[in-house]
């Protein structure tokens, strides 16, 4: 079992049974079940995982709500995400109440169309900001994950396949980033770039945190992929491809990459969760999303200052963030179990 390539379970050629040569090939089998590919098998296993499906549903709802932020803002709450309302009043259960009390205390959740989750200290609608903030957090997570997947895979392939000089140059680079705590590295680079921006990108652009977070986590994918490629390149089918005269790039893309695909796929939800969390950390420390943009991280961070008087300001965005990351993690676990059934080996003691 140990010698079997991890991705081998998923490499089409290794699992699909050889084509039967006529009806006599399997004399014992009266009815033949149609051959089913490894990806369908994984999908079938995933669909049987009810917990993962439930959280996938929740995740779709959460993402959908965040994407509909402008609709909510325009048609239901009738207030923009950055519209302040310090002196305004609203009717709650027939009573007229200040949005922000004379002592500066914002109103709590009303659970009606206006100020559904209450207001912040400047009278902005928390529910609207929550959805817009979610859009920002999810966008940064998605962008950063894309960077990680593209460059992590590329670096893993290059260092693992070519070894030698390429490895000697690129691997220490990955180790250097990897040996820094992500939060500290992210805060240092984030603060620096938030001031001046890079090139044409402005300092308060969302691309800056996305880029920083992506680059920080590239080695977290690049290193395992490198290990995987180092092993895969010694497989017989790679030798066969080489003997056939395939070039290194073609071997990497058509022979090695498909076998490393399951590892990469398992990393996607993990990275999505971890990048959304890092964005929150950076924003908490003032080095992530910059005003006027809001993200779940900045909302929580602003809310923590009012944790004793207006706890909803930190707890509601916090709950939303945790729920989203939790859903991604549960779905990710489901995907991992579906792709690698051996991770569910039963123990007998």
């Amino acid at each position, binding site marked *: 079992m140990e010698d079997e390539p991890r991705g081998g379970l998923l490499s089409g050629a290794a699992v699909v049974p050889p084509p039967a040569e006529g009806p006599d090939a399997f004399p014992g089998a009266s009815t033949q079940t149609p051959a089913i590919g490894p990806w369908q098998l994984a999908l079938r296993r995933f669909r049987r995982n009810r917990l993962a499906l439930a959280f996938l549903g929740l995740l779709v709802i959460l993402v959908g709500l965040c994407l509909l932020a402008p609709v909510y803002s325009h048609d239901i709450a009738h207030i923009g995400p950055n519209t302040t309302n310090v002196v305004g009043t609203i009717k709650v259960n027939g009573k007229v109440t200040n949005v922000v009390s004379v002592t500066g205390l914002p109103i709590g959740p009303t659970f009606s169309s206006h100020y559904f989750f209450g207001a912040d200290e400047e009278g902005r609608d928390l529910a609207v900001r929550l959805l817009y903030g979610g859009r920002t957090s999810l966008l940064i997570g998605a962008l950063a994950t894309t960077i990680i997947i593209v460059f992590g895979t590329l670096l893993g392939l290059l260092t693992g396949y070519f070894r030698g000089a390429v490895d000697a140059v690129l691997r*220490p680079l990955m180790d*250097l980033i990897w*040996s*820094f*705590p992500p*939060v*500290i590295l992210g*805060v*240092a*680079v984030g*603060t*620096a*770039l938030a*001031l*001046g*921006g890079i090139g044409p990108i402005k*300092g308060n652009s969302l691309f800056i945190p996305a880029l920083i977070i992506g680059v920080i986590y590239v080695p977290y994918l690049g290193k395992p992929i490198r290990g995987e490629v180092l092993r895969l390149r010694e497989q017989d089918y790679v030798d066969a491809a080489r003997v056939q005269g395939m070039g290194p790039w073609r071997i990497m893309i058509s022979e090695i990459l498909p076998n490393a695909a399951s590892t990469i796929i398992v990393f996607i939800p993990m990275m999505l*969760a971890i990048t959304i*969390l890092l964005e*929150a*950390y950076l924003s*908490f*420390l*003032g*080095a992530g999303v910059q005003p006027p943009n809001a993200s779940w991280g900045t909302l*929580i*961070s602003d809310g*923590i200052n009012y*944790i*004793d008087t207006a*706890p909803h300001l*930190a*707890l509601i965005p*916090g709950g939303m*963030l*945790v729920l989203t*990351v*939790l859903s991604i*993690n*549960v779905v990710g*676990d489901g995907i991992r179990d579906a792709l690698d059934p051996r*991770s569910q*080996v*039963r*123990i*007998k*003691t």
Partner: protein
Amino acid sequence: MARFIVRRTLSAVALLFAVSVLVFAIFEIIPAYNPARAIAGRNATATTVAQVSRKFGFDKPVYTQYLNTMKLIFTGQVIDYQDDLNVVDQFRERFGATLSLVVPAAILWLLTAVLLGSISALRVGRLIDRGLMALAILGVSVPVFLLAAVLLYLFAFKLTLFPNTGYVGITVSPIQWAYHLILPWFSIAVLSVGFYSRVLRSNLLDMVNQDFVRTARAKGLPARQVFLRHVLRNSMMPIITMFGLDFATLLGGAALVTEAVYNIPGVGQYEAQAIGNLDVPPILVGAMFTGFFVVLFGAISDVIYGMLDPRIRLS
């Protein structure tokens, strides 16, 4: 062993050099970075800025600035630009608070994670396994600063069981010290317990089907001994590497979010302030400080590796 120490020392020097150059380079390429202006103050005239620039050597070439800063760091004379404080003294003063925060938290999370991960693996598929793993996945989904804030809200403001923030030195009053740090310890530990117990559980499950475990069982060892001396011992290897790295980075200042929420005057808080002010000397010292611990605990975890698994030679 001697060769191992020499090699690790050399790689430590190389890493610290790389880290310091990297930090210096990052600040050199930032267009908005102008330390002379920051020191001189907002309303300073151009001549004052130029004077400051000459005094601190910002008008010199980059490599001279780098070498001067390094010289100041290693002679312990480096000061930060913001408050004119000696950076090395600051780290020395604040390290006690960070140690108080990180060491007990680390012990707490390692013991809890090993216990919960083992229980989960031994009872795999049962209710307790599902419950623990549900908690673990929740634990890795909560940012530390949010957990810290929620605990602060619940236990300090609502139930008033614990003081809201602050730090008391262990030499002043050990009881007050622990009383002030219980919530911070817990905040740091939860994330790691979740992460480590998940990893340990899956390692344990992989290990159980290994040949040497079957052999141990076949030769009639009691189940307890098989688990502790064969299964658990071999499953601890990746945990030890993770622990070494996490512990090192927390000591180096990665506990900054917890220190920020609970207002604990540790090295992380100082680094966070320095980063906010783009104050290069403390950032540089902080990065090298962290790098030092990363190398140190990397070496220690390799030694423990060798002790747990004699097949691994130190080289």
